[in-house]
C-alpha cells in the first residue's frame, strides 16, 4: 500500500467523488443473491403464500362488510392466486437477471 503517494490520493479522491454522483440508473429491485436451494425455496414460497393469504383476507373482509358470502372470497382468492403467480414470476426474473449479471461480471474478471 502506497497511501502517502499524492497522485494515488487524488485518484482515490476522484473515485470517491464519482461514487457519490447520482447514477442515472433506474432503481433496481432487491439484489438478493441466490444463496442456496433452500433460500430460493423460501423466497418463492413466502412470495406465493403471502399473496394468497392477502387475497383470502381481503375476500373474507369484503364478505364480512357487504354480506356477499361466498362471492367476495371466491373472487379475491382468484386475484390472490394471480398476484401470487405474478409475484413468483417477478422474483424469478429478478433472480435470473442477478445470475446473468454475476456471470457477466465474472467473465469480465477473467
Amino acid at each position, binding site marked *: 500500500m502506497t497511501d502517502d503517494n499524492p497522485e494515488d490520493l487524488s485518484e482515490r479522491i476522484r473515485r470517491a467523488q464519482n461514487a457519490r454522483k447520482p447514477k442515472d440508473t433506474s*432503481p433496481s429491485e432487491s439484489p438478493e443473491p441466490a444463496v442456496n436451494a433452500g433460500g430460493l425455496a*423460501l423466497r418463492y414460497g*413466502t412470495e406465493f*403464500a403471502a*399473496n394468497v*393469504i*392477502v387475497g383470502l383476507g381481503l375476500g373474507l373482509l369484503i364478505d364480512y362488510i357487504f354480506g356477499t358470502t361466498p362471492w367476495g372470497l371466491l373472487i379475491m382468492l382468484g386475484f390472490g392466486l394471480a*398476484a401470487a403467480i405474478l*409475484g413468483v414470476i417477478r422474483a424469478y426474473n429478478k433472480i435470473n437477471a442477478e445470475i446473468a449479471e454475476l456471470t457477466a461480471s465474472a467473465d469480465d474478471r477473467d
Partner: protein
Amino acid sequence: MLRTFAATDPIAQFEVKTIFGIEDVFGMDLSFTNASAYMLLASALVAGLFWYSASRTSLVPNRLQSIGEMGYEFIANMIRGVAGEDGLRFFPFVFTLFFFIFAANMIGMVPYAFTTTSHIVVTGALALLVIGIVIVYGLMKNGLGFFKLFAPSGAPLPIYFLLVPIEIVSFLARPLTLALRLFANMLAGHITLKLFAGFAIQLAATGTAAMLLAPLAFAMGIALNALEFLVAGLQAYVFAILTSVYLNDAMHPGH
C-alpha cells in the same frame, strides 16, 4: 431418555418466558419477557456502538470509528443505489432498521441466546412500520397520485379491471413477504442448527456403532453455523434493501 429429548427439543429455544409480569394494562398483557430483554439488548448494543464510535472522532479513525463510518457508508450507498439521492431523507430509518435486525440476528447466533427475529410478531411489527411509512409518506407527497402505483401505465382499458385488484393484492402482500421472509429464515435456520446439534448428542449417547455417525452430524452442525451467520447478515440486508425499494415507490409511484 426423556431428559435427552427435553434438552434437544428444537422448538424450546423459541419459548417466550415472562421475566416480570405487568399484566392487564387496559386489558393487555404488557409483561416484560425474554423477547423484550433481547430486543432491548440489541438496541442498546447498536446505540452504544455508534455512540461510542462517534464520541471521540479524529481525522484518522480508530477501529470503532472506522466501523461506524463503514456502516454509514454501506447504508448510504445502498439507499443511493436504490432510491437515488433524495432517498437519503429516510437514511435514519433504514439505518436503524438494518442495524437493529442485524444485531438481533447476530445475538441470536450466540448459544443459549434468544432470537427475537424468529418471532413473526417482531418481524410483522417492523414490516407494518415500513409499509405504514410508505403509505403515509406516499399520500402526503403525491396525494391521490400515489394510487398510480396500482395502475401501471400503458395497458388497454379493460385490462385494468384485472390489473388493479392484482396490484392491490400484491402491494398488500409486501409487508407480509417482508415479515415472513425474515421470520421463516431465522426460524428454519435455528431449528436445523438445533436439530443437527441434537443429532450429534443423541448419536453419541446411544453407545452403539451409531456413535461413529456423531462426528458427521457435528461437522454438519458447524457447516450450518457458518451458513446461519451468512443468512443472519443477508436477511438484515434484504429487509433494509426491500424497505428502500418500497420507500422509492412511495416517492415515485407510477413506474
